[in-house]
């Protein structure tokens, strides 16, 4: 295995994060802090507890997920799209690195950035709301699996995209609405029965609820189902990436 190659890609991507600290970390932290102020403190004070959890604390897993999903996709898609856009991808493609090593470098860096971001958001939340984590190990498992899965998904988008518009399309037009409608700010049990059923087709519901279960021990769906859903999505992403590299789709064509 070309570990020096993996290291080179990983460090290069982490250096890009340092150069774009405002965009990578500060911006999502600020927007999340605003959500806590508006929904957690201002509106939350007039809301009752949900599943025995104060509203301010209830929205923490969903808000972390919102940033985690969008930033994982954004970081990974930019990471692979920019070399394609600038033409520097030639160097990676001509280097003695395997597909697995390329993915390890780019997706590993994007996952690391998301985990750092997730940790910062959790610390930021602490400034606004007092919360306990009932299952800390499971919380970390969900955090890592979600970051990894959506970084893989972002990597796919970065290869598929042939313009900046497409790069923004999925996070803005698909992920953000799914997260908002996936129970970030409410329990799906608060919805009418029809919309509860519709919500179950939203994969983000399972991510948020699994994460929420790790925090508070309560959720709308069983954590086992949440874990299974994320593993299915992870497997699907790995399968698509394998196909991309096997065929050279939009890379070596």
């Amino acid at each position, binding site marked *: 295995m*070309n570990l*020096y*190659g993996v*290291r*080179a*890609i990983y*460090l*290069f991507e982490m*250096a*890009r994060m340092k*150069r774009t600290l405002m965009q990578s970390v500060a911006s999502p932290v600020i927007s999340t802090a605003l959500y806590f102020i508006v929904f957690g403190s201002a509106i939350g004070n007039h809301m009752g507890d949900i599943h025995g959890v104060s509203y301010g604390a209830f929205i923490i897993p969903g808000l972390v997920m919102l940033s985690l999903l969008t930033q994982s996709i954004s970081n990974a898609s930019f990471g692979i799209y920019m070399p394609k856009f*600038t*033409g*520097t991808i*030639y*160097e*990676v*493609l*001509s*280097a*003695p*690195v*395997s597909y697995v090593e390329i993915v390890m470098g780019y997706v590993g860096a994007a996952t690391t950035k998301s985990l750092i971001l997730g940790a910062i958001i959790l610390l930021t939340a602490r400034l606004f709301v007092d919360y306990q984590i009932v299952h800390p190990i499971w919380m970390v498992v969900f955090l890592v699996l979600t970051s990894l899965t959506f970084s893989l998904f972002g990597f796919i988008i970065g290869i598929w995209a042939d313009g900046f518009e497409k790069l923004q399309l999925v996070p803005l037009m698909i992920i953000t609405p799914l997260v908002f409608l996936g129970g970030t700010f409410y329990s799906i049990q608060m919805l009418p029965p029809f919309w509860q059923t519709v919500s179950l087709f939203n994969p983000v519901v399972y991510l948020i609820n699994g994460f929420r279960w790790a925090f508070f021990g309560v959720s709308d769906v069983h954590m086992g189902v949440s874990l299974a859903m994320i593993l299915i999505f992870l497997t699907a992403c790995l399968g698509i990436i394998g196909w991309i590299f096997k065929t*050279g789709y939009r890379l*070596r*064509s």
Partner: protein
Amino acid sequence: MQPHISVRNLSKVYSGGFTALNQVSLDIHQGEIFALLGPNGAGKTTLISIICGIINATSGSVSVAGFDNVNNYRQARSQIGLVPQELSTDAFESVWNTVTFSRGLFGKPPAPDKIESILRQLSLWDKRNNRIMTLSGGMKRRLMIAKALSHEPRILFLDEPTAGVDVELRKDMWEMVRGLREQGVTIILTTHYIEEAEEMADRIGVIRKGEIILVEDKAALMTQLGRKELRLQLLKPLDALPDALRSGSLSLANNGAELIYTFDTQKSPSGVADLLRTLGELGIGFGDLQTRESSLEDIFVGLVKHPKTTD
């Protein structure tokens, strides 16, 4: 001796149906400078990209130092350094970091001394902490070379390396290329500056419409296909060539004031003595004469217009 690079029946058809390469076969030997010439769109960059592993071939095979570049891609690619035609760089990265990145990518452990030596050799040491976006075009071109050399390749591809580079820097680059050749590095270059190929290359390959139409030792090519031209400034202009001078090798120019005789450099005797004797017999005097040997550019233009396939 086993060729350093062996290309066999290589074809590339892009998804739109365009055939960029058609059954290309080519051997490149260790330690030689091989110049690949061809007009725009002939398939030079596609050929290089397939050898380097950047794009997939539709059919055919490539081996590098005996390693198949698909099945044994690690061994094959680790031999190669590529200086692409485009100045593709990460504008916000520093010179030092980008060269370090290239070395790591090719599986080499960090070697600051080695990178320092390359940057000094290419006059980039003073710029090591500068962002790439602050470099001039010539510096960026040198940086591309530094990146390609960072992992100490045994084969170096230079795709139009001196495009847009000033004369002094161009000479420096060719000096460096000669130095690499002396170290046993195989060099494959494409260039539009044919005089460079003429000056540098050991062998010349000409590609046209995705097919290799000629591969030849440069000196042999110049001898085989080179032509010489004798121009005589006549004392009195001629209205037409006298019957005794009517042949495909003679023509009039400048309203009959100049007689041009074209002959093969390989032909012996050249026919010049016979011509001068005939002119004397016909009483045609001349005040001056010049000879000119055809350049590689003339040969190249002739080949591309009227291809001659060789083995």
